[in-house]
Each structure stands twice: as structure tokens, then as C-alpha cells.
């Protein structure tokens, strides 16, 4: 039972981990830009490099989450979307499925958030 308890709480983490990374990435890039442009507007090149690094790290983490959620969903096992039964197996698969989709959204979100830094070169 306790083994299942851990499993279940872990699988819940998969659900919210990716959007959480997205939210943190948002706060970090925006906060960093605000402070950097106030303190050292001339060094915007370094800022863009840091945004690139932070974004790459966030994407790598989200992809990791996506991979684990994908495994938990276990889609390739039966190729079905049916996991609405009152079983632990179904609950596991449902949370994995939802977590995977949230990870996909988070990847898109993180890329869109970082995109301005790719085009807007300076603080001005």
C-alpha cells in the first residue's frame, strides 16, 4: 500500500512539474531582464546569452518530465486513450497522459517567452 502511495504522489508531481518549470522560467527571464536593463543596459549581449542558457535548461528539464510522463501514460502499450476506470492503473495512465500534454504546452510556452530575446537585441 505504502509503495503505491509513493507511486501515486510521484505521478501527481509529473502533472504539475512542467508548468511549474515554465512559470519559474518566466519569472527568471523577466526579472533578470528588468534588473539587467536597469543596471547594465549596455551589456544586453550577455543578457541574451543568459536567457539562452536559462531557456535551454528549462527545456531540458521539461523534456525530461515529458519523457517520464510519456512512460507513465504507457500509450504504446495499448494505443488507447481509455483510462477512466476506477483502478490504480487507469489513474496512473491518466495522470501520465495529462502530464505529457502539459509538458508539450510548457515547451511551447517557454519557447514563446524566450523568443523576444532572439529578435530584440537591446534594452532600449
Amino acid at each position, binding site marked *: 500500500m505504502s509503495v503505491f502511495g509513493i507511486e501515486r504522489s510521484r505521478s501527481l508531481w509529473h502533472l504539475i512539474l512542467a508548468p511549474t518549470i515554465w512559470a519559474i522560467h518566466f519569472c527568471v527571464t523577466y526579472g533578470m531582464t528588468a534588473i539587467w536593463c536597469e543596471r547594465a543596459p549596455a551589456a544586453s549581449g550577455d543578457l541574451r546569452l543568459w536567457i539562452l542558457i536559462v531557456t535551454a535548461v528549462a527545456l531540458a528539464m521539461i523534456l525530461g518530465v515529458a519523457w517520464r510522463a510519456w512512460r507513465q501514460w504507457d500509450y504504446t502499450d495499448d494505443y488507447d486513450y481509455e483510462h477512466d476506470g476506477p483502478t490504480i492503473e487507469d489513474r496512473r495512465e491518466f495522470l501520465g497522459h495529462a502530464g505529457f500534454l502539459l509538458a508539450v504546452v510548457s515547451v511551447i510556452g517557454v519557447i514563446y517567452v524566450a523568443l523576444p530575446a532572439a529578435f*530584440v537585441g537591446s534594452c532600449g
Partner: protein
Amino acid sequence: MRRRTWQRRGASLLLPGLLAGCSGVQSILAPAGTDAAFLSNLFWVMLAGAVVLWFFMNGLMVYVWRVNVGHMSSRKAEALIIGGGIVFPTVVIGVLLSVALNAMPDMRAEGTGTRLKVTGEQWWWRVEYWPEGAEAPIVSANEIVLPANSRSEIGLTADKVIHSFWVPALGGKTDMFPGRETRMSLEPLKPGTYRGQCTEFCGESHAWMAFNTVVLPQDEYDAWLDAQAEPAAAPASESAERGQAVFLSEGCGACHAVRGTAAAGKVGPDLTHLGARTSLAAGTLPMTQDALVRWVRDAKAVKPGAEMPAYDHLTEDELSDLAAYLEGLT
């Protein structure tokens, strides 16, 4: 029957308004500057895309609900949902975002020609031209003049509350904050007169806080700026002379400056070249004698809350003398 006539009447009322919006002096659909042209192109591309999508989506709906009910394999449906519901919109929005972001540095590029500073007041615009190397600005108000085919740098700020500066035919808009300077640049392409409007609610007469932007060919602009730097013209008629006397004795000069005379107030708009402007009181009235009389007699009746006292104790003769004087300040 009844409904028809109502519909027709509604349409006939609406249509001229809509069409006027397309060709007017204050329309994003009639661009006269580089930035506005980009924005309107973006609008048309997005509109065309939205129309195509609208037909496609509705066509698809008819197809699966009416034409081909229940025959789509789940593989196909899955491909449609993932392809059409996730990949396609992500790519489309990504492309639109990139196009817009890519244009931003150009739009925010620093002006190379004229420099001016515009301050949002209650409810008018203080305008300063700073020619290359100038130590003091050439002060004007309620109208801005820009040279065509050159990017002008515009510094923006506000006096008491937030205003927003927007000339739709020339470019995007930028907010003006008390105690802070924001900036924008505009590159008009076609000489002409374009209307600007305050677009941040700023009090009772917010809607009356407009201005004309006059775009001139470069050489005409240079001549205009030289003339603008000159002090005011002396009254050219007896009526205007009497008007000047009224102006000075009524204390208008406490709030208004007329350079070259004793009037040097800075509270209200600079009137040195008032008569050369295309509108009166920030785009509210035409620049005519009648309008000037109406304005001076009771400014608040024209513009609710206007921070200029009424002069309804003046006689009709005094008012028309004043108007003659003011109109002669070209």
C-alpha cells in the same frame, strides 16, 4: 417587413461610418508612415488568414457532421487533432510572433532627423522642437509638424496623469507618464494632415484631447521650423491691435506665452504662432474667428473641465478684437 426596414436603416447608418473609417485622417487602414504600413499589412494578412481558417473550420464541421458522419478512422481523427489542433496553431502563432518581434527593433529605431518632446497636459499637448545643437527648444502646442521621409525622434512625458500618444495613420502608440520619459519614433512617408488622439483616459475632456500632425516635404519643414522660431507677428489691423491690448490687460499672459511680447506664461499652450495651426484647443474646434470667440468667452462650455477661466464679462467687440489678434498670430 418592419424588421427589414430597420435592418436596412441600421446598415445605411453604419456603412458610411465604417467606410469613413477606412479613408479617414485617423485610420490604421490608411497608413501614411513606415510603421503604420507594417501594422496594416499585418492586419490584412491576419484577416485573410482568419477568413480562410473560418471557412476551413466550418467546412470541416459540416463534413464530419453532415457529409461523412462517423466514417473517419480514429487514426485520421488523431492526426487531425494533433496536426490541426496543436502543431498548426503553434506554428502559425510562432510565425506571427516572430514577424512582429522582428519588426520591433525597426519601429523603435532612434530617429535621425527632427527631435521633439511632447508633454501630455490637462487636456492639451505641450510640444518642443529641439533642432540639432539647440540649447533651448522652439515651443509650440497642440499640433506637431514632421518632415516626410525622415525618422523623427519623439520624447514623451506627462504633467499630472497618464496620457497616451497615438497617430494611427503614422504608427503605434506610446503611453506618457508623469515623471518619466518614454520615447518613440515615426517615419511619415506622405505629406498631409493626420489626426492624433490621446488614448489613455485622463479626465473629463479626454475625448477632446486630440491634435493634428502635419507632414511636410523636408524643405517646407525646414522653412516652417525657421518661421516657428521667430517671435510673434505684430498686430496687422486696428482690431488686432485693440485685441492685443485686451489680451495683455486681461492677464492672458499669466498662462500663455506670445514670444516677443510681455506675455510669457507657461501654464497654458504657447500662442506665438497659434493662427498658423490647423485646429484650436487640441483638435476641438476649427481655427476660425467664430471658434476663437466661442473658446475665449467660455472654454469650459466647449471642453468640460478646461483649465482656462471664462471671459464672458468681455463685450462682443472685445472678444472679436481678441479673436482678430489671435488669428493674426501666424
